């Protein structure tokens, strides 16, 4: 069993890579404001199902790569994602047994926290983030979470990632 697990680790990293691709893929016009935080969603899933292997450190590293990919300040996403991973790893027993829609709200709360941290960082570095559109990603992540969850669930069952 253990061998199978280790061999399927690539799937997790592939899903992270794909999520990052989605996070920089060009979207038409104002859709860009509603882009879900794909990497954060995937991170929450793996941190929730395997809190022992994917936790704060992985979240931070993923965030750092997102920082580079999106041209943000180095550490901005890293901080937010580490926080998201921490909350997930701390609450994973509860989140796991929630129905999907309830999970979605927890996820949205975490994204809002991440965005707040991010807004604070932007404020300190003098960037202007006025407008309600800033919170768009939290709403779209809420909507997208059930699909992500069911998809990754199915995938991890199929490949027996544990």
């Amino acid at each position, binding site marked *: 069993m253990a061998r199978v697990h280790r061999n399927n680790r690539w799937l997790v990293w592939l899903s992270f*890579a794909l999520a990052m*691709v989605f996070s920089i893929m060009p979207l038409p016009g104002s859709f860009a404001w509603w882009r879900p935080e794909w990497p954060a969603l995937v991170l929450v899933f793996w941190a929730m199902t395997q809190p022992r292997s994917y936790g704060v450190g992985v979240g931070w590293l993923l965030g750092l790569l997102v920082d580079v990919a999106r*041209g943000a300040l180095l*550490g901005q996403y890293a901080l937010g994602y580490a*926080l998201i991973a921490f909350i997930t790893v701390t609450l994973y027993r509860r989140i796991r047994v929630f129905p999907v829609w309830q999970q979605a709200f927890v996820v949205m709360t975490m994204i809002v926290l991440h965005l707040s941290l991010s807004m604070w960082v932007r404020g300190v570095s003098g960037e202007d983030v006025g407008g309600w559109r800033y919170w768009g990603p939290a709403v779209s992540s809420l909507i997208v979470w059930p699909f992500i969850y069911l998809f990754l669930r199915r995938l991890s069952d199929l490949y027996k990632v544990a």
Partner: protein
Amino acid sequence: MSGDTNSLFLHGPSALVRLILLGLLSIVLMTADHRLNYLGAVRSTLALVVYPLQIVAAFPPRAWDWVGETFASRDQLLAENERLRTSHLLLEVRMQRHAALEAENQRLRELLGSTTQVSGRMLISELMSVDLDPYRHEVLVNKGSQDGVFEGQPVLDALGVMGQVVRVTPLNSTVLMITDPSHALPVQINRTGERTVAVGTGDLRLLRLPYLPNNVDLREGDLLVTSGLGDRFPAGYPVAVINAISHDPGEPFARVTALPTAHLARIREALLLWPTSRKNTAVVVPADAVAEGADQPIVADVTTAQPAQPAEPAESVTPATAPQSATTPDAAAETDGEGR
């Protein structure tokens, strides 16, 4: 790995400790990145990891373009060919005059005893269709330090100034566009020679000219060109066209906005420019702008050297009094002509 023996509890406090440590590390990183610009190497290394992902992300739009081009009808191609041929001919004709003018310009400059400044080497780079932070006007182009791209390099499109390079990695580089709120560009009104600073607004189609006094000679439709005073952009490239002027007698400066001539929202290819010698502009300018030249290059350097920190530089561009004091003489002389 060792958690199997005690699978009910994981890590215990260590997750919190890790969060705190990594959080502190993030703050250190952000400070270093923001204030000190030390992290170029770290960013370049990580950028190599991210590069394949960027290629993948940019693939669908590229593929779509390719499909469009491959299956374009023959008529379309013929029409496009015809159009390009015409514009090529027109440009050729204009170039003939340009060559003569450039030679004349050089001769005159020699007479004046100043150095020549013919436009330098150029390199065409393609924009990578990758979305960056929507709060900054930055784009990624597919040339990097391997091609000799350097930080602060001017970038143009076919119609005007687009921006400047702010981050370079070996394989690609990030261009900050002139409409970013943190960007300020020393410009000159082509008709009158009035010098000022064009500041980005955060809107891809608009620039602000906040430091023009109320009595300045200005009309809608006036072309703004680079003045070369920032020592970054060579002089004389078109930047924007004035589109709205409003005078509020209660305020010291007119409210002026301009539309960039470059199609910033639709750019596919960008020209990276290697100015022949960046010192030349400084040699040419002092003749009539000593007072102003003393201030403006600093303005431009402050604003352009640290583009990662938007609002702040825009505020530090306050030597608004400098353009005013330096330009009022000729502005006053020209306002009679305007009579408004």
